[in-house]
């Protein structure tokens, strides 16, 4: 019925827009005032129907403003207005019906009406008919989005009517796709619907599955004989397809079998039948085991005071006497078959894309681990030094980014400034640490570990004292907002892509520095044989200092990257330190490719485990670490180990 009205309305809109009406919108609103003041998704429908049906000129504008939380109400008389900013902090009232100015008012005299998002969704649904053929493409898109979110059978006709006149090809394609989706759900013609269903074969869109899946909704039903006249998905055998207990409960619910007396009821029955400290002649004190209680209950049942128990045999017989089947809610088998086949083809596509998405996630995580660990790998590999304060260098980088954003409000510029600055700050911090502490602990790697741990807790607390304990915002420029979307399954945020690119850049840069520059040559010389290197005129102290600064500087840059996609707190670094160690150790020490391999393995493996155990990320991390411990058994020197005697102990 409603649908027909809407169709009529749509026709009216198409052929005779803007009927002149005598009634005033304000009057109409007045009659619905209570519901407009405190709207709810469940009660607003009739109000909207009335507004739309009134065909008054201001309705579309009113609905739009209402949805955008720009509707105001005068406290004194409850009248609704739109407003504009006026001089002196006052608001200029605008009449909703005529669009004319209606005097100034104080903000305190007005209430801003803010419908919740559920109501806004319903309003958007009501707006569809006004907007679907609006000259402004922005409005048309809004209407389509509203339709996609909450489609209604009544919309199908309006939508079909709005396709041909659509000038924009992209919007037209979207309208057509939506039309097919609505046809699947609300279409009346079997052939049309089947065609629409089949047109989505291999389409990974969530909306396509969302339209198809409801067709295949089933419920389990009980039949006395083989089911007829219903669309059966499959027959169920108790014991293999369905738990016997559940099946029996279905029978009980259908009134086809006697209910089983639950344990609690049996206990209550015993309590109710206590007489002089005896239950059916058994002293209460003896009822300390379940079997004793069962005996007492059976005795009571024998007297007929309580309902007898259902025996296993009786249950078995009841199950054997009935047929259980999964039945489609959709009666038409042609539709369900088409939907099932289309979904099967979709699930293949989706499976492939899910794998792609997982690979992207793994790659992204790997690049983050790589960035976090590579600085550590350099210092560890070249100097054999375990720097527990590495995480705090990451933190320093992130806070540098935050501080820069306090001075440079433009996010793009601030990131461009922050990256080299974070490198510089962390570089200096690293050099300071090397000069002041690590140099004096040469050849005592375990003690370096402890000293740098001391530095780590001191730095963390200092950061807390300076920046406070709250997380600080580090905001990415708006061009990094959002995600690269291939389809509804595969997408990855631009930030992650940027981090990936950054990681690649650093890989390239480091390879260049280590393999093509004088510094790299000297670093490699010091790594392989410090005594020989120093006899050749290389100053190992200088090299160590520079290497340590380089490693720390990269950690600083990693800090900016991590801060952009996660959070900036004083504990930011400590969350990555153990992971970074494992990346370095798994990959193999003293080798950039090794770190890359380690990060790649840990990142992708973690995602893989998460994939198999989606409801428990914590377990995934545990298994990951156990895997690493076992992996080290087989490759104690990591994936890519330095070979030969030099690598020996």
């Amino acid at each position, binding site marked *: 019925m409603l649908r027909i009205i809407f169709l009529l309305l749509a026709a009216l809109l198409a052929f005779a827009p803007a009927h002149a009406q005598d009634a005033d919108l304000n009057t109409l609103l007045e009659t619905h005032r209570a519901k407009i003041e405190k709207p709810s998704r469940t009660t607003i429908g009739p109000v909207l129907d009335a507004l739309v049906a009134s065909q008054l000129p201001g309705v579309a504008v009113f609905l739009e403003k209402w949805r955008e939380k720009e509707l105001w109400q005068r406290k004194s008389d409850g009248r609704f207005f739109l407003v504009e900013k006026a001089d002196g902090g006052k608001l200029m009232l605008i009449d909703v019906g005529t669009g004319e100015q209606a005097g100034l008012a104080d903000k305190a005299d007005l209430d801003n009406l803010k419908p919740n998002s559920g109501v806004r969704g319903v309003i958007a649904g009501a707006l569809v008919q006004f907007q679907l053929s609006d000259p402004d493409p922005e409005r048309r898109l809004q209407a389509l989005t509203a339709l996609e979110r909450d489609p209604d059978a009544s919309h199908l006709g309006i939508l079909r009517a709005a396709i041909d006149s659509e000038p924009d090809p992209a919007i037209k394609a979207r309208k057509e796709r939506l039309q097919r989706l609505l046809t699947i759900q609300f279409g009346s013609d079997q052939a049309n619907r089947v065609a629409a269903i089949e047109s989505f074969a291999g389409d990974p869109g969530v909306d396509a599955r969302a339209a198809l899946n409801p067709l295949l909704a089933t419920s389990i039903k009980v039949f006395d004989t083989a089911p007829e006249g219903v669309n059966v998905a499959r027959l169920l055998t108790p014991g293999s397809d369905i738990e016997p207990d559940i099946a029996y409960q279905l029978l009980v619910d259908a009134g086809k079998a006697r209910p089983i007396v639950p344990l609690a009821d049996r206990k209550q029955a015993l309590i109710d039948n206590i007489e002089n400290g005896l239950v059916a002649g058994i002293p209460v004190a003896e009822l*300390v*085991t379940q079997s004793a209680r069962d005996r007492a209950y059976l005795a009571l049942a024998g007297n007929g005071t309580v309902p007898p128990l259902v025996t296993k045999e009786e249950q078995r017989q009841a199950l054997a006497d009935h047929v259980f089947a999964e039945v489609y809610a959709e009666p038409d088998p042609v539709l369900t078959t088409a939907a099932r086949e289309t979904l099967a083809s979709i699930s293949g596509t989706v499976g492939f894309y899910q794998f792609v998405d997982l690979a992207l996630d793994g790659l992204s995580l790997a690049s983050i681990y790589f960035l976090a660990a590579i600085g550590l790998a350099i210092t560890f590999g070249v100097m054999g030094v375990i720097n527990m304060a590495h995480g705090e260098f990451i933190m320093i980088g992130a806070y540098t980014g935050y501080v820069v954003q306090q001075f440079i409000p433009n996010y793009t510029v601030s990131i461009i400034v922050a990256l080299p600055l974070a490198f510089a700050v962390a570089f200096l911090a690293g050099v300071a640490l090397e000069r002041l*502490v690590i140099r004096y602990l040469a050849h005592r*790697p*375990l003690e370096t570990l402890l000293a740098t741990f*001391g530095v780590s807790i*001191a730095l963390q*607390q200092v950061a807390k004292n300076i920046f406070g304990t709250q997380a600080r915002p580090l905001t990415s420029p708006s061009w990094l907002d959002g995600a690269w979307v291939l389809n509804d399954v595969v997408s990855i945020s631009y930030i992650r892509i940027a981090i990936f690119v950054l990681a690649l850049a650093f890989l390239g840069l480091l390879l260049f520095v280590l393999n093509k520059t004088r510094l790299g040559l000297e670093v490699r010389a010091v790594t392989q044989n410090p005594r020989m290197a120093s006899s050749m005129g290389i100053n190992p102290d200088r090299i160590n200092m520079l290497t340590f600064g380089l490693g720390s500087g990269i950690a600083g840059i990693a800090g900016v990257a991590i801060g952009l996609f996660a959070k900036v707190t004083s504990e930011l670094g400590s969350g990555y330190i153990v992971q970074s160690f494992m990346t370095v150790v798994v990959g193999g020490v003293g080798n950039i490719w090794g770190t890359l391999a380690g990060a790649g393995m840990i990142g992708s493996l973690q995602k893989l485990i998460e994939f198999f155990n989606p409801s428990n990320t914590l377990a995934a991390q545990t298994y990951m670490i156990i895997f690493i411990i076992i992996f080290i058994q087989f490759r104690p020197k990591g994936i890519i180990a330095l070979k030969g005697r030099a690598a020996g102990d």
Partner: protein
Amino acid sequence: MQRSLFARQPSVLVFIGLLALFTIVIIILSEGFGLGIVSTSFIKILGKTLCLCLIAIAMDLVWGYCGILSLGHFAFFGLGGYMIGMWLMYERTKDIVIASLSGGELPATPEEITEAIGTQIFGVVGGAEIPVVWYFADSLFAQLLLVVLVPGLLALVFGWLAFRSRVTGVYLSILTQAMTLALSLYLFQNDSGLRGNNGLSGLQNIPGLTEVPQSVVSVWFFLASAFALGLGYLVAAWVVSGKFGNVIRAIRDDEARIRFMGYPVEAYKLVVFTLTAVIAAIAGALYYPQAGIINPAEIAPIASIYLAVWVAIGGRGRLYGAVIGAALVSLLSSWFTGGQAPSIPLGFYTIDWVDWWQVLLGLGFVLVTLFAPKGIGGLFDRLVRKDAAS
């Protein structure tokens, strides 16, 4: 040339004597004893500190003597706590449940009791079933055995894997750290059956002794901790003073050399690792009933790093060094977090110790490693030697 342990390790007698004196003095001054000069909360702090000293001795044995920088001994400490905690919690709850069910009209069946215990213990964390790992929880004897067995077995298996593949030095440290992280992450899960993040709580209430005031219970545990520490010190001193001690120090100094002398280095490491894990577990089993709660955060890798730092500050390779380090750092932490340290106003800025003590602690670690590589124990040795010379 057979000399007694005390002749070989003169510090043992001094240590045991001082410990006994300290224990007796504290007990006499305690609230539980009647004098009430030392508060129950301070007795508990002291008792816990003694347990920390015991695990520090284990750490010194494995790191200071055998050269294995394990960043995982708090995992064994925590496991010990969990094992005893299960019994404490189960029995306490059982008492409550039985008392509560006895008010019912029918006497409770064993199933009902078990079910009620399950709801009571796990209801808090969204469960009701008693997990399999609690199988022995109602037997004190079994759980005491598990205090030793579970951490011992974990150490044995982990150590066997790690030592067999010749993982040494910092690699081993990182691997032990990974083990600790894995264990704490595992326990953080609710599905671990040990109440996830909530851990086991109310452990200070000893089942069957609910009428005994905490002031007395705390003294008992203090005494037990002191006894365990004394015993642990004795065992450790015995282990390190003989040929075995020479061999493990040789392993620390030159692993390859001692291997070519025919010593199965891996077996020695395994023995030391497992032995110290067991000592750590016993320390934990005494610690957590005094702390009252154990949860996975206790096992987090950072705790084990702190342990290494205590030993480093106290002085590696000296058993009393470990004790000094653990006692000093943990008592200092306790003092600083207690809010009693006065703030220092500088006019333009007020130094609040709550904000700055960790900075101080961290820098303290750095200074000790830089300027006193042998720790406080090393300074101590120097003093003693000077005395001897004069």
